[in-house]
């Protein structure tokens, strides 16, 4: 059976004044219906670019994207237009992702207008109101402007706009990072409810490990454009294999006072993604680095069932 979404060896390089920026370097994963793949990594690791390239907002440099068994890599404008009914995106910054000069109602209705769904007049209004109810937005806001609302409500407008075309796959680019903790929880619950009701599959991009653990079925960790680890959500936290993921996990401050465990503090800073040298890009900061790490790109191997790691010395590190 074919997966809903299959990405093979996807690469995305950007031309900059000082050389090629390797934003996404050889990423492979699959996503099925009603499933959430969490993509986690620090800033500059290419997770946002991955999301936008999968969606077709950027043209892929190399590799293939298959959606519902059809190759949609760098499709024509018409095909891209047609695909919007299937694939949508939710943005991070609730303030910047809404047109300040359009009312809530118009913003949600715009996708319907573009595709001519629900004729003009009241039944398009009815659909908009339905969507507002769906995302828990009070109907009295239909004529108000984004700047009159708080962050939480604006994010709900973004979600409603994404759902308008009843897509089957949504890229969520840090949907809750810009929100306060209590509002964050409301939106996460909302997204989980929508997934069940609308049978959606998410590509959930975030830098916050606790959020990704809570919401994802499978989790992929990225570092400077490269995939370092991919496994089931719960499995990743039980047996963490890649040194970067270990460091990432230990760096997160826990909200409890009985945590007197040794913390792995990484040395140095992110290296530049422009014209990167071959080999594992985490090597310069890795405590287990060996000369091999600096020469050859580590290939993604299935070290444990359904648990892939890209590291030359993964077995030695974990004593497998």
């Amino acid at each position: 059976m074919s997966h809903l979404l299959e990405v093979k060896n996807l690469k995305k390089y950007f031309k900059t004044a000082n050389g090629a920026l390797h934003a996404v370097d050889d990423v492979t994963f699959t996503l099925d219906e009603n499933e959430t793949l969490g993509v986690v990594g620090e800033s500059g690791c290419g997770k946002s670019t991955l999301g936008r390239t999968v969606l077709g907002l950027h043209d892929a440099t190399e590799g293939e994207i298959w959606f519902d068994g059809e190759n949609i890599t760098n499709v024509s404008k018409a095909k891209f237009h047609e695909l919007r009914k299937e694939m949508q995106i939710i943005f991070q910054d609730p303030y910047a992702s809404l047109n300040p000069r359009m009312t809530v109602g118009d913003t949600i209705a715009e996708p319907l207008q573009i595709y001519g769904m629900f004729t003009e007049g009241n039944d398009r209004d009815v659909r908009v109101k339905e969507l507002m109810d769906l995302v828990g937005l009070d109907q009295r806001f239909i004529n108000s402007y984004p700047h009159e609302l708080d962050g939480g409500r604006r994010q709900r407008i973004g979600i409603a706009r994404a759902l308008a075309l009843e897509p089957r796959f949504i890229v969520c680019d840090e949907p809750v990072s810009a929100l306060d903790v209590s509002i964050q929880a409301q939106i996460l619950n909302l997204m989980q409810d929508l997934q069940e009701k609308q049978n959606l599959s998410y590509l959930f991009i975030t830098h916050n490990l606790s959020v990704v653990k809570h919401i994802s079925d499978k989790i992929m960790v990225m570092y400077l454009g490269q995939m370092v680890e991919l496994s089931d959500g719960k499995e990743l936290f039980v047996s963490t294999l890649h040194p970067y993921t270990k460091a990432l996990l230990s760096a997160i401050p826990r909200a409890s006072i009985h945590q007197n465990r040794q913390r792995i503090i990484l040395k140095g800073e992110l290296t530049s993604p422009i014209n990167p040298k071959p080999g594992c890009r985490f090597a310069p900061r890795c405590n287990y680095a060996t000369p091999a790490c600096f020469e050859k790109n580590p290939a993604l191997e299935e070290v444990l069932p359904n648990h892939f790691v890209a590291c030359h010395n993964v077995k030695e590190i974990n004593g497998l």
Partner: protein
Amino acid sequence: MIPVMLGVVLVIFVMLSLSPGDPAVQMLGPDATPEQLEELRDDLGLNDPFLVRYVKYVWNLLHGDLGTSYTTKQPVAKEIFERFPTTLLFTTLACIVGAIVGILFGIVSAVKQYTWFDNVSRVIALIGISVPSFWLGLMFIIWFSVGLGWFPSSGFYGPKYWVLPSLTVGLVQASNVMRQTRSAMLDVVRQDYIRTARAKGQSEMKVIFSHELPNALIPIVTVLGMQFGRGMGGSIISEQVFAIPGIGMLMTNAIGNLNYPVVQGGVLVIALSFSIVNLLIDILYAFIDPRIKSLYSGKKRVRKTKNEFVREPGKESAANG
């Protein structure tokens, strides 16, 4: 810069050749016979097709020959460079007055926002940009030259003569500079590093002059550059009011008499000085703002215009929790 210059010459060439007048008649006067007119047109090259004339003009230009003036038969270069320093001096003086008065008032009214000083200077600035400079010039002559007799009313021979003209144009420019300085300072006042400076226990005066002003200089310098360019053009009117022997008067007469070489030469010189000033402004930016300097030095020269620090696609924005 070169393409702009060529473009400028082309535009003026087109404009002049469109005008119905015939320079030959203007030169030889009404009594000249048709044969003499025809003969003169030939040796002036006016009968050649448009493109040939343009190429020939540019070719001479490259050899530094601006052609000879139809009326005075003097080399255009000599005639222009005899009078260009006067216009340059006049415009620079006006810009200096504009800069000093403008920046000073701009800073004080930005720092003392919501006070009466801020409101009064803003209203005066509004009045300043609404007054036609030649009207102001006439008024100044009535009061200061004729009424009080402090300054001569025309001519441009010594410092005494410079006062009225540069004040007239300078004050109008000052209003523009003041408004720009004020809004630039108000932008900077809201930045975080100003709060950091205050948190260091820095005195208010130091915060303004060593933290706020350096950061506000870029938009201010941009406006000054624009003012100088507009000043060169505007001098044409003010030179007429104060009888200043600059290239402004030369140009207006030249256009009146269809003296092609002088018009082209004059416009070229003004356009050249305008571009040079812009170049100086760009260089100045590098001194004011290290971020721009780093764009030039070391890495390949990436010419980023002032206001578009385009965010490279794909670079994550710092993910704030």
